[in-house]
C-alpha cells in the first residue's frame, strides 16, 4: 500500500499521546488541520493495510504489578515449531522470535511474579525436553522506544 504525506503525518502524530477525550479523532484532526471524518477514514485504511497493528495503552509490566523477563533457548532446529507451540500457549509470552545464533529462540515472559515465571520455564523444559533456557530479567532499563518516524 502506498501512503501519502497526510498518512505519514497521522502515523507520526498518534504513536504516543493519543488523545483521551470524547472525540479523539476530532482532536487529532484539529492538531493536523484535517477533519474528523478524514482522520477516521485514513486510520481505518492504515489499520486494514496492517501498517498500524493496534491503537491502545502500553504498560510497563512492573508498573501494573507484574514481573517480566527475556528468555533465550537453545532448541534443535527440527524441534523449533513444536517448542514454539508449547511456549506460545502461555498467555504471558508476548513476543517470540527465532534468531540466528546457537541460542536460537528468544521470547518475553510476563507473569504475576518471578516465581510464576520460573515455574513456567521449568514446566516448558519438562514438556519439551529443552533444558538450556536462559532467564534474563532486566536489571536496568536504559532505553525503550517503540516509536518510529515514518519518512
Amino acid at each position, binding site marked *: 500500500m502506498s501512503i501519502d504525506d497526510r498518512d505519514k503525518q497521522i502515523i507520526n502524530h*498518534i504513536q504516543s499521546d*493519543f488523545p483521551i477525550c470524547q472525540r479523539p479523532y476530532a482532536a487529532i484532526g484539529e492538531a493536523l488541520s484535517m477533519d474528523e471524518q478524514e482522520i477516521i477514514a485514513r486510520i481505518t485504511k492504515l489499520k486494514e493495510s496492517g501498517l498500524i497493528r493496534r491503537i*491502545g495503552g502500553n504498560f510497563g509490566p512492573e*508498573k*501494573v504489578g507484574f514481573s517480566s523477563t527475556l528468555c533465550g533457548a537453545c532448541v534443535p532446529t527440527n524441534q523449533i515449531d513444536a517448542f514454539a507451540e508449547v*511456549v506460545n500457549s502461555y498467555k504471558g509470552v*508476548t513476543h517470540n522470535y527465532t534468531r540466528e545464533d546457537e541460542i536460537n529462540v528468544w521470547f518475553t515472559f510476563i507473569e504475576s511474579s518471578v516465581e510464576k515465571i520460573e515455574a513456567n520455564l521449568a514446566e516448558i523444559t519438562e514438556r519439551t525436553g529443552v533444558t538450556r533456557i536462559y532467564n534474563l530479567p532486566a536489571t536496568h532499563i536504559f532505553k525503550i522506544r517503540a516509536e518510529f518516524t*515514518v519518512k
Partner: protein
Amino acid sequence: MQLTDQEKRVISAIQGDIPVCERPYRVLAKRLGMTEEVFLSVLTGLDDKGMFRRFGATLRHQKSGFTANAMVAWQVAEARSEEVGGLMASFNEVSHCYRRDPAEEWPYNLYTMVHATSRETCLETARRISEKTGVTVYRVLFSKRELKKTSMSYFSQAEVPGAV
C-alpha cells in the same frame, strides 16, 4: 502501586485495540457497563499517574521499512555498564537498551535492539557502537522468524469483579 477494580477494568479495555469511530471510549465504556464520563476520568487518572509507557498506535516494523532487526548482546566490564548503557541508548538506531545479569556460558550483560533497513546497516551500526564504547566482545542475533507477537492482556475482563 495498588490498582482499583475500576482501574483494572479500564486497563482490560484499552490494552487491546481502541475502535476507530467518533466516540471510541463510549463504545469501550459500554462494554464494561460504565459511562463514557467515568471511563474517561479513570483513564485520565491512569495517564496522570504515569501508568502508560506509551498510549497510541503501534506499527508493524516490517511494514514501516525497518526490515532488518537484530538484538546485539554485549559483554561489558561491570564497572562501565552504566556509562556504556547510556552511550548505547543515545544511538537513534537503538530502540531498546537493557542491562541483564550474565548467565552460565552466556557472559553478556548489555542488550540493544537495533533496527535498520538492511543487514549490512545493522552490522555497521553495531560496529559504530563498538567503536564509540570500546566494547569489542559482542554478538549480533538477527531476528529470523516471528513466532508470536501480541500485547499483554494484564487483567482479563472475567477476572475483574464487576466486569460484565
